[in-house]
């Protein structure tokens, strides 16, 4: 396959995100919905990079968003009066990436030696463990969290601070979603992706083929975690100007990540995008029709998908387009 042809599937991804962005920008009053959908897509894209490609479930995934949000919150909270201006955001994103990198390395070094169920068991406590470490050892203000609404104003000025919360934070969520999708495609088209496919299908056979499975699992785990960290930094810290440990380590975000990936199709490129939008839209309408019932409705949906359509929307679509010109674009 030629290089250009290899990366053709990026087109529908870019088109979809551009359409979503246009919908939010051009139609008055729709920006919040569009950015919320982008958040679900980004969450799914980032989560899919690990869960979809390796077949391992990380129940503590939200911990990476959590530490990422601290990575952004801390410099703004502590350095707002240093006159760093927008550099603070750069530092924040950098710190978010570093925090989530370190946490994923630490967790991965232990948990990724384990297989399947044992891996899941090891990860189920990560978010809680980290939350209680912050609260228990009173790190980063402990259970009181960090509130930096005023610090944002000091650092960036009132108008810019508002614009950051209302627009730029969301814009960056779009960016994370697109970067995550592109990373997924790059992985898929390179050795990493083939190694991950192999180990997802049959870990022993993969080892015998010369694949250092631990190395590739860690690669996917860290990439996925760092993207989550940056997502937490932008979608939560920058947007809301506060971080509470009880909020940012909330396991429901892991549930949402799982739903987004499964609805769309685990291990596909377009899946999390499609899944994120289906989930986001239905959640939005459910909130109007049956407020408070979203999770009660979505949890059985997960089970139904696993039992009845384990391939997800895009997985089924992929099968349909085999042999048609669309085949090159949909993965």
């Amino acid at each position, binding site marked *: *396959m030629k290089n250009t042809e290899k990366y053709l599937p990026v087109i529908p991804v870019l088109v979809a995100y551009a359409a979503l962005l246009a919908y939010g920008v051009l139609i008055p009053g729709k920006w919040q919905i569009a950015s919320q959908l982008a958040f679900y897509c980004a969450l799914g894209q980032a989560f899919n990079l690990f869960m979809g490609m390796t077949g391992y479930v990380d129940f503590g995934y939200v911990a990476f968003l959590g530490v990422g949000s601290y990575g952004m919150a801390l410099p703004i909270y502590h350095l707002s009066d240093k006159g760093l201006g927008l550099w603070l955001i750069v530092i924040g994103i950098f710190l978010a990436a570093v925090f989530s990198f370190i946490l994923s390395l630490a967790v991965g070094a232990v948990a990724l030696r384990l297989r399947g169920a044992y891996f899941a068991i090891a990860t189920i406590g990560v978010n809680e463990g980290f939350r209680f470490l912050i609260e228990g050892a009173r790190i980063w203000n402990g259970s009181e969290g960090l509130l930096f609404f005023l610090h944002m104003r000091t650092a960036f000025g009132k108008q810019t601070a508002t614009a950051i919360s209302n627009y730029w934070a969301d814009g960056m969520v779009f960016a994370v979603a697109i970067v995550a999708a592109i990373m997924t495609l790059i992985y898929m*088209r*390179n*050795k990493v992706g*083939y*190694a991950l*496919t*192999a180990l*997802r*299908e*049959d870990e*022993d*056979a*993969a*080892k*015998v*083929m*010369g*694949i*250092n*499975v631990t190395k590739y699992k860690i690669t996917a785990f860290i990439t996925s975690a760092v993207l989550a960290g940056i997502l937490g930094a932008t979608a939560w810290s920058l947007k809301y100007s506060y971080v509470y440990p009880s909020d940012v380590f909330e396991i429901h975000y892991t549930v949402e990540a799982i739903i987004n990936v499964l609805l769309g199709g685990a*291990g596909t490129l377009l899946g999390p995008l499609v899944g994120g939008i289906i989930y986001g839209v239905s959640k939005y309408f459910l909130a109007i029709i049956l407020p408070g019932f979203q999770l009660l409705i979505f949890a059985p949906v997960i089970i139904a998908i696993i039992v009845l359509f384990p391939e997800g929307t895009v997985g089924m679509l992929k099968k349909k387009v085999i042999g048609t010109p669309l085949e090159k674009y949909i993965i």
Partner: protein
Amino acid sequence: MSLLRCENVTKRFGGLVAVDDVTFEIKHGEIMAIVGPNGAGKTTMFNLINGVFPADEGKIWFEDMDVTDFPAYKRAHLGMGRTFQIPRPFSSATVQENIAIGAMFGASGSETSTDMAMEMADHYIDLIGLKEHRDKPAGGLTPIEKKLVEIARALAMKPKLLLMDEAMAGMNPKDIDEMVVFIKHIRDTEGIAIVAMVEHIMRAVAGLAERVIVMHQGALLVDEPTQKALTDPRVIEVYLGKPPEDEHA
């Protein structure tokens, strides 16, 4: 220089000695068969050779390098390929991708780009005659086709030693004869040593192997050229059993 040397290799599972103090050598380019009844320790021996789990005692040398403590993937990089008794292709990947994965991560994997691997895969697809299935997911193939894909995948690793675990189980006699010819052909063209574990299909052993190792209850019973091994009274006893009345004689 031998290609592979096992020295006094022992493996225990709990109280059971699965492989008991086994020593043998494999030369470059030879076809050897390991045979023996069920539970003789053949599969365990295979797993020890290619590092699925470590030996409890003894040493394993590959081209004079001590690989006893190497994990499976490192041994694959040195040139060990393997197929499984029940074929284990990566089901969701296409035939071409399956074989390309072998090329990407095998002995010459570090110099092989994904594009090169795909081209190499095409070569092996021709070799096994599955051209029309090239872009199909391997999970949908027939068992024999899966087996062929697995062999091609192992060959694409450019191994010096190919371990084939019951490559012919579940095949009818015609397929077996074809497979024997095919395996000899790849040995001749690719110049690799082949160790086939074909403990029950004696027709294949007789037609294929130059040398036979017979294992029984974890230990090495016989290590001889094929004809000699198969007519050895100890081997016949292991297979046909000794009539009970002989015990009293």
